[in-house]
């Protein structure tokens, strides 16, 4: 505690009991408030007389003020009993803007996507009990994708905790496995420190969500404490890695230069860790092929010729083949997820692996790294690039050229663009074509928020992201319902940007209520619904593994009229059923710059996502179409 805070506390104690009982004896709420304000004012002026500038604030005010001082611009949330003092504090200021969603899950997804789009920490406020439990899916989503987020949850009054009080849930307990850390406030005076620590923990090291649980009594308006927002934070038990080990980096640079069949495999860590620029420079310098995970898309320009596309379960033929045949794999900010590696024991049999990750627990978790480097992508890539530029050794140009010849041959043979994986000449609108048209109409420069399913994979395969932080999707948890609120978060982050939500008729119904939030805050999102009348991804698996027994993956004509639904929220609805009108209608949609437009596009129900890795085998083993495999 600072001397100023100590003085303020001493003075409040001196004013003592008589003042308190005077305040308490006021008969009306207004008089009470007035007497209280006078008291707080007299503490403040006495402090100023002693040369200390302090401000007396209640817990609720401190919380919001701390957010302001942390630089928070938007707070996504939903009010309720235990959070009402905090909501009153929000009302009495202008700097932190609250966005009222229609379901707490949406608040977490919107804050999460705000973070993905900007790199800042997303911030959420919910009430206790159902408010807190509704936020859980969104917290888990952010946790799995390592997204920095701070979630403040109201809690019942301290003395009621543990008594099964009204709307009590053990938020710290329920969220424990899906947070980076959590705090329960014990005294209002801790609030500024805890907020500071929470944001620091959320954003540093491997980012992740942090929960702050705040009992209602600790935010009460008429109990004030001297406020000071800490400038620095130090947590003795937390020292996230930054710079990688110099010796390891040197070894890695050398191995990379000596590679004859290299692949750069980059993931979400490069996007979140602002490493795209350096990665691109390094890859360009070496003329090495790059593949991205689902989370890493945009980390390397999607339209560049050195880009192989996504790898993994629905990765491109050339990316998976290149991985399998590589002699050196440079993995950066990626975590060898099982959707990437396929069977670990068959994974890249001839490759030496360099793995850069800020989290030591990601390294050698599933696939053993030959050169592990614990550090942030930004600093490690910077040092590696410098070493490569300085080095007298150069890659063997002949070897790299024949590697490219091989890769280009794979690309010619089964590439997504060179040898389409679907019927391009039929009557029906193919979902892949919708994404291609979307790319064309938006100039490849939109923020694309996605839901989960086949549409997500088509978007990942065909919308070639040239910039990081443009592709917003739930990879690790695969949360249907993420798309629309995520699009809202992106639009809040960049009010002038073009934001589209690629979704399916299944996923969109999981957070459809947010169409109302879009109305309230004028968020002109374009919803591109690939309506295949089915839980397509489920249906695809049923086609492939259950002899097309469509157990509960179809809805029997129960779908709403999405056009009318959109209209009822005050938005524009456009239905597309004919292939030849797709492009014109898409253009019409994006021409309506200040409106939410819901495009309900009927696409081929039977379409499958290909390539698809064959389970239990190596990366090179794939289905290329319904009838063709490697």
């Amino acid at each position: 505690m600072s001397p100023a805070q100590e003085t303020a506390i001493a003075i409040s104690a001196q004013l003592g009991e008589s003042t308190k009982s005077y305040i308490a004896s006021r008969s009306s709420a207004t008089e009470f408030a007035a007497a209280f304000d006078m008291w707080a004012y007299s503490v403040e002026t006495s402090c100023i007389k002693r040369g200390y500038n302090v401000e007396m604030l209640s817990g609720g005010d401190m919380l919001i003020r701390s957010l302001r001082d942390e630089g928070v611009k938007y707070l996504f949330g939903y009010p309720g009993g235990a959070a009402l003092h905090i909501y009153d504090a929000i009302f009495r200021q202008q700097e932190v803007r609250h966005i009222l969603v229609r379901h707490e899950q949406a608040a977490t997804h919107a804050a999460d996507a705000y973070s993905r789009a900007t790199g800042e920490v997303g911030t959420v406020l919910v009430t206790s009990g159902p408010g807190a439990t509704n936020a859980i899916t969104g917290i888990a989503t952010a946790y799995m994708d390592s997204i920095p987020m701070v979630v403040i949850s109201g809690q019942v009054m301290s003395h009621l905790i543990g008594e099964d009080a009204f709307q009590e849930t053990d938020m710290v307990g329920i969220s424990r496995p899906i947070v980076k850390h959590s705090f329960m406030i014990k005294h209002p005076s801790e609030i500024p420190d805890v907020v500071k620590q929470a944001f620091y923990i959320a954003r540093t090291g491997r980012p992740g969500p942090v929960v702050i649980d705040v009992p209602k009594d600790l935010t009460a308006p008429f109990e004030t404490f001297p406020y000071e927002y800490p400038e620095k934070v130090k947590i003795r038990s937390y020292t996230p890695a930054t710079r990688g080990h110099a010796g390891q980096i040197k070894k890695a640079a050398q191995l990379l230069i000596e590679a004859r069949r290299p692949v750069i495999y980059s993931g979400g860590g490069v996007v979140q860790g602002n490493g795209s620029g350096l990665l691109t420079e390094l890859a360009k310098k070496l003329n090495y092929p790059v593949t991205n995970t689902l989370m890493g898309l945009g980390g390397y320009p999607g339209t560049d010729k050195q880009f192989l596309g996504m790898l993994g379960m629905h990765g491109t033929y050339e990316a998976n083949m290149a991985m399998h045949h590589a002699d050196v794999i440079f993995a950066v900010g990626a975590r060898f997820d099982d959707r990437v590696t396929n069977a670990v024991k068959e994974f890249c049999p001839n490759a030496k692996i360099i793995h850069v990750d800020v989290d030591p627990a990601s390294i050698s978790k599933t696939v053993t790294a030959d050169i592990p480097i614990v550090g942030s992508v930004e600093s490690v890539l910077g040092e590696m690039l410098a070493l490569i530029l300085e080095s007298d050794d150069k890659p063997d140009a002949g070897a790299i050229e024949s590697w490219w010849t091989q890769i280009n041959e794979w690309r010619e043979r089964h590439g997504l663009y060179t040898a389409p994986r679907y019927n391009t000449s039929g009557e029906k609108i193919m979902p892949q074509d919708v994404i291609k048209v979307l790319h064309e109409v938006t100039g490849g420069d939109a923020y694309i928020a996605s839901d989960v399913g086949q549409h997500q994979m088509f978007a990942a395969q065909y919308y070639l992201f040239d910039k990081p932080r443009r592709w917003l999707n739930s990879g690790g948890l695969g949360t249907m319902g993420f798309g629309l609120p995520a699009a809202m978060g992106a639009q809040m982050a960049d009010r002038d940007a073009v934001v589209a939500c690629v979704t399916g008729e299944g996923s969109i119904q999981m957070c459809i209520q947010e169409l109302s939030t879009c109305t309230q805050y004028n968020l002109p999102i374009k919803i591109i619904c690939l309506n295949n009348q089915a839980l397509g991804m489920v249906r695809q698996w049923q086609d492939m593994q259950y002899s097309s027994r469509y157990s509960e993956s179809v809805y029997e004509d129960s779908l709403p009229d999405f056009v009318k639904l959109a209209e009822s929220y005050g938005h524009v609805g456009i239905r597309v059923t004919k292939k030849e009108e797709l492009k014109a209608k898409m253009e019409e949609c994006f021409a309506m710059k200040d409106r939410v437009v819901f495009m309900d596009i009927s696409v081929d129900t039977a379409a499958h996502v290909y390539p698809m890795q064959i389970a239990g085998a190596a990366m090179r083993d794939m289905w290329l179409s319904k009838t063709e495999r490697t």
Partner: protein
Amino acid sequence: MRRIISVLMENAPGSLSRVVGLFSQRGYNIESLTVAPTEDETLSRLTLTTLGDDHKIEQITKHLNKLIDVVKLVDLTEGAHIEREVMLIKVKAAGAQRAEIKRCVDIFRGQIVDVTASLYIIQITGTSDKLDAFLQSVGDASILEVVRSGVSGIARGEKVLSL
């Protein structure tokens, strides 16, 4: 392999549940667990024994280190160390059994800490193996109740686990 991991962590609400939660969440097993504050009230020392191959133990220590409350940890089994566990046992001790059990306690350097006409309470300290051996020699038939503290350990020599 059996490992003894010793953890120095913040003596704060919730830190123990984070450690325990980590083990159940990731499917690691805990054989025994002891925890108490240290001479520095702000820190707790936690000792746990677990089973796993090198890969698993590496993951366990990495994940423990990631917990914000964990200040430092050491895998004691990596070097020379001393391990101790305390056990209290209530046994039937009547007739000829009494002398027999008393002799057994002496051999294991235990103490009889409470006596009635028909039973003893025995206190015995040592490695977990020694306690197991004692239980075996007393035999299931006479054992009424067993309480074990779980393992505590400390590294031999100069090495210390402190701030």
